[in-house]
């Protein structure tokens, strides 16, 4: 097990958002978290990446183990620099005052300046030609979808072997969305582990190996994707019929 | 029973140094008189009690401080505020509430005008301005003068204007070839000085606070000025020499007293202050000392302390108004109908040892 969430409780102030959830992600897997709005998916990812208050929440119980070691107490930035876990956050959070290229460069802050880095630039620009085109544009003037691409590209550029994606397809055109999932699949085949949150549950389950279904802070169903897709309750509540 | 006297002084704000020196002068005098068993009024010895209120160099605070002293502390008289910005409104309050007040340092005529209860210890600008003009004409053979003053400081502005009018009237219109100003807390004067120097005056009149003087004189020298400066009483601070150093030597200013070569009580005061607080007292300390002495003389003149506050205050006011002459360390003084002192000014030279050396004395 690469990542293990054990009975995690999380609070915003006094309001509990996660009521003891447990799940795990194995090395090389694609796992998806699906569930209705406000179920606590984003909260889970933020807990893993240790986003501090006030933007974030506080863990009030349980543990998060990475390769068997607890990462609850480590400083936030070491999640990337030491543990190599990257997050493409909900709401994009790009650095609007920097150019596209500077955004990507900043993502390499904690990695050595080697040729792999160069390869990753190429890969990103290859994946999203728009990014190459807009390289020197201040990123805040990008269109919504372009910003989303930048956010995902940035997560890829941190060169982590474990990447968390929070609704990466939001605002992307269908074409790009499929392209992106193809690339993610390819990355996965090269050894990258992926934990994906996606509103489009159909797509997510098609893409992932395993899935967890969340509802109001709890995990209500889990299993291999195919199994979940055929689960009538999941179908009814989350797959739109 | 004690005799309570209030101090309305700027311990914080723009000019804390002024407040500090006033306070130190007060403490020194207090220790001296109480050390002798107190003040002798009509045969009884009364201990003195001084209450120091901070007016933050703000007009509104000076008013509340005055009221607090009058209403809460029930003082017999108030010394301060020092600068006119606070002394004018505080003077109003003291006058309205029938409490004698004496400002050691304020030079604005409005402070005492039509206010029978308000006095001051410093001479007024209309007297000092011409002293400077006359001296410069005589000593520098000056035909053309330049003035640099602090716009937001009414002391400086007033004096500058009076000097300008006087000099022009003596040497013809336009004899003041440059009349420049600077703002509150300014530190760079190069533009004004460039203007002044290019207008070729025979000397530069600087009716400014000593800390600014130090900067102005240095900067003028940087810009190539080699002529003389003439200053006013606000130069009269021991710190001037620490701040200004060699640059100020050889220049003149008019003031209340000359520290170097001072004799008698003046010397005693300076030495004692220096010993106690580690630096030479400025004119404001000396004026505060004199102001307190005026109040004490007024109390002694009143002849008795009745314990009825209103009556005592009235008696003290009459007592001060009736003063024949107080021998002050800044000169001997008596008061005219407005409550302004009639006293002499001296012109001092800053000699090569950096001392303020007596040059001449001008009496009204």
């Amino acid at each position, binding site marked *: 097990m690469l990542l293990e969430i054990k009975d995690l409780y999380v609070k915003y102030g006094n309001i509990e958002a996660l009521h003891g959830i447990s799940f795990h992600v194995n090395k090389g897997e694609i796992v998806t978290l699906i569930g*209705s709005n406000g179920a606590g998916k984003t909260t889970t990812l933020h807990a893993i990446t240790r986003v501090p208050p006030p933007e974030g929440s506080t863990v009030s119980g349980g543990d998060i183990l990475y390769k068997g070691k607890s990462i609850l107490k480590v400083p936030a930035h070491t999640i990337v620099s030491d543990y190599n876990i990257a997050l493409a956050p909900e709401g994009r959070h790009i650095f609007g005052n920097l150019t596209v290229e500077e955004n990507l460069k900043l993502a390499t802050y904690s990695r050595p300046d080697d040729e792999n880095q160069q390869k990753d630039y190429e890969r990103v620009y290859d994946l999203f030609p728009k990014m190459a085109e807009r390289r020197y544009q201040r990123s805040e003037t990008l269109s919504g*979808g372009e910003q989303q691409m930048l956010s995902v590209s940035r997560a890829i550029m941190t060169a982590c072997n474990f990447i968390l994606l929070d609704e990466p397809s939001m605002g992307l*055109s*269908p074409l*790009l969305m499929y392209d992106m999932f193809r690339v993610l699949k390819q990355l996965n085949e090269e050894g990258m582990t992926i934990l994906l949150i996606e509103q489009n549950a159909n797509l997510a389950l098609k893409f992932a190996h395993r899935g967890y279904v969340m509802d109001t802070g709890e995990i209500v169903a889990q299993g291999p994707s195919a199994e979940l897709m055929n689960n009538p309750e999941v179908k009814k509540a989350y*797959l*739109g019929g | 029973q004690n005799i309570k006297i209030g101090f309305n002084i700027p311990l914080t704000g723009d000019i804390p140094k002024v407040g500090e020196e006033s306070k130190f002068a007060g403490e020194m005098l207090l220790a001296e008189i109480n050390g002798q068993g107190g003040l002798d009024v009509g045969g009884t010895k009364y201990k003195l009690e001084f209450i120091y209120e901070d007016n933050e160099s703000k007009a509104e605070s000076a008013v509340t401080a005055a009221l607090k002293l009058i209403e809460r502390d029930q003082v017999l008289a108030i010394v301060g505020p020092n600068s006119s910005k606070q002394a004018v409104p505080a003077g109003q309050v003291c006058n309205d509430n029938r409490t004698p007040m004496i400002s050691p340092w304020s030079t604005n005529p409005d402070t005492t005008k039509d206010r029978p209860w308000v006095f001051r210890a410093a001479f007024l600008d209309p007297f000092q301005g011409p002293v400077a003009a006359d001296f410069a004409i005589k000593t520098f053979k000056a035909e053309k003068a330049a003035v640099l003053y602090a716009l937001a400081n009414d002391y400086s502005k007033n004096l500058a204007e009076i000097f300008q009018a006087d000099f022009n009237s003596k040497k013809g219109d336009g004899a003041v070839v440059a009349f420049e100003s600077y703002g509150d807390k300014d530190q760079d004067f190069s533009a004004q000085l460039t203007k002044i120097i290019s207008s070729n005056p025979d000397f530069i009149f600087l009716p400014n606070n000593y800390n600014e003087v130090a900067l102005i004189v240095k900067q003028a020298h940087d810009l190539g000025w080699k002529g003389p400066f003439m200053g006013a009483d606000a130069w009269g601070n021991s710190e001037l020499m620490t701040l200004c150093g060699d640059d100020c030597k050889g220049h003149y200013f008019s003031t209340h007293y000359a520290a170097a070569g001072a004799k008698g009580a003046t010397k005693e005061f300076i030495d004692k202050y220096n010993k106690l607080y580690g630096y030479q007292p400025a004119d404001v300390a000396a004026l505060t000392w004199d102001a307190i002495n005026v109040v004490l003389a007024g109390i002694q003149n009143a002849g008795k302390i009745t314990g009825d506050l209103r009556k005592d205050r009235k008696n003290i006011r009459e007592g001060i108004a009736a003063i024949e002459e107080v021998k002050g360390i800044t000169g001997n003084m008596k008061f005219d109908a407005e409550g302004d002192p009639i006293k002499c000014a001296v012109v001092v030279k800053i000699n090569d040892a950096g001392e303020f050396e007596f040059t001449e004395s001008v009496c009204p």
Partner: protein
Amino acid sequence: MSLLEIKSLTQQFGGLTAVSEFSTRFEGRELMGLIGPNGAGKTTVFNIVSGFYKPTKGKILFKGKQIDGLKPHRVTAMGIARTFQNIRLWHDMTLLDNILISQHYNLGYNLFDLFTRNRRYMENEKRMTSIAMELLEQLNLVQFKDEKPRNLPYGIQRKIEIARALSVKPDLLLLDEPAAGLNSSDVQDLIQLIRWIHNEFDIAIWMIEHQMAVVMSLCSWIQVIDFGKTIAEGTPDEIQNNPDVIKAYLGDDNI
């Protein structure tokens, strides 16, 4: 006279042409879709129509009057309301206030009335409150009226944004990606809601959306733009099968 007529609209940002020679028209109360790849200029078109940008070139007529160059609040007052790609509610005011403030186009009183709180003021405040309450009731949002949007679920926030836009009694409603971030079942609800609004309020709706399920089931006419230019338009069926559109935008969904 058509409701809205856009004639060869062009918008440049520096050297970049975000929209070029774009034209369209609304005859009456249609429900039209505007789709296209990311960065094609869809939002920019909405921004120009709602008065946020002044177009480099082109003309927009609304109910026969020229509106390009007008300030946004004027455009809204004339009857064009919109929602945003990223939710922009006033998050720290109550839901009711959110709806009320949109009544600024028709306050009915002035500052003098305000300070004296005379009859005119009272009546108008009452009128606006009842408009707002009625709308909230129609949209089943009354129970949240004193809540702050920040504390409400994302789906509800989207709905509130639509409610707020409706409160200006628009003739044309612009929806910028209303389904973004909604999960599949919420999307179904949204489709119902938009259809219902279209009928109930009898207004024209113009919609940008990337989720084809929404666009195809709602819109009667769809326009596709790429690099700011119209590359296709037609009924949902025509669009879905147009090879240009598939190549530029729809793609194929095998992962």
